[in-house]
């Protein structure tokens, strides 16, 4: 999985590519731990994310809980595969998603 990170003041954009699953979720967790302090708007750009598993959803949920306290979190540009996962798991009702 690739993670490109761009910070702009209190805004943080993480662009993910590849597969977010049990074996790559720790990579995203590490990136979050390193960069989340002081962030008020967190954007995940999923345009190049091919797949997300339940382990990836768990990370999103944990980050959502943090961002509920310190600002907002937006998931942008999920492709059809990822959108389908959000739909069948009910995450489309939990997350703020921008197509």
């Amino acid at each position, binding site marked *: 999985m690739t993670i490109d990170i761009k910070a702009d003041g209190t805004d943080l954009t993480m662009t993910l590519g590849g597969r977010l699953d049990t*074996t790559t979720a720790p990579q995203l967790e*590490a990136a979050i731990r390193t960069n989340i302090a002081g962030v008020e708007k967190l954007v995940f750009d999923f345009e190049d994310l091919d797949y997300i598993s339940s382990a990836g*959803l768990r990370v999103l949920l944990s980050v959502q809980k943090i961002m509920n306290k310190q600002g907002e979190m937006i998931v942008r540009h999920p492709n059809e595969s990822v959108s389908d996962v959000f739909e069948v798991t009910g995450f489309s009702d939990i997350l703020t998603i921008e197509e």
Partner: protein
Amino acid sequence: MDVSGLNVLNRKLEVYHYTSPEGLMSILDEMTLRFSDCQFFNDTSEYTFINTPLEHALKRVKLKNPDLVYETDSWLDDQYEYPTADNKGMARYYVFCMSLDPDSLHMWNYYVKGKSYQGYNIGLSSDQITDYLGKLKIDNLDFMCGPVHYEPEEQISLILDLLEQEDAILSLRRKRIREKGIESDEPFRRAKDNIDEELERFRLFFKDRAFRDEHEFRFVLKVPVDFEGNDLLIRGTSVKNGVIAPHIDLKIKSEFIRSVTVSPMMDADLAKTGVELFAERKGYRSFEIKKSKIPIRY
């Protein structure tokens, strides 16, 4: 799927590589971590261990699309060269093993010679290495990491989660296609490809429960077979139990090393001094050198 109550962001940041005195000196001297080809693991059955939880999961699972389960023959494949995601070539997996336990008698026991312990562990920053590996922009090179799963129920549960998720999505996509009056096996192929890919990844992180005291954490590199190496990832071969085995050495930065711990041994103070002198000579400044706290009785 249970996604509540797991604060996955609070994991430990330090992981520990247990090694021999020669291994420690080599890492500090060369500032490299050696990733072993998964076909050459000490336990050669490790790569195919997943068959056990997979068979249990397949007996237990109830899918709306039972044709997914009929494809099990290919899921139990044990090839060591695996197609890269874009089908441009084949890749092999290289693994670097660590433990989440900073002072494990179980792990020290692998480094007993005669009647004395002769091991060391190197404490490494998991986050820094993860960040570093994630930034290596090499075509078709993939990086994975995480704890090894030992508990059969946990392994089965991960496989069931995967199968049930793909089953639900397959149903959704088939319904859409039916509504459009189209016939296509694409939804099935996509589900099968995802299951194949995820099982291939799981197998590198599943081990028999007998090894649970190792509390292993792994970094895994999926490397195209035609990758020739570069300044940071150096291809090489070494002799392991009489077998010529391929490996990849990853160049690291000195700040990734947080500590060195000396195993319980008769001359722990002397061993600690030896590490201090070696580290000082090699220019290391930042890591702590500790002695094991395990009281060994003879």
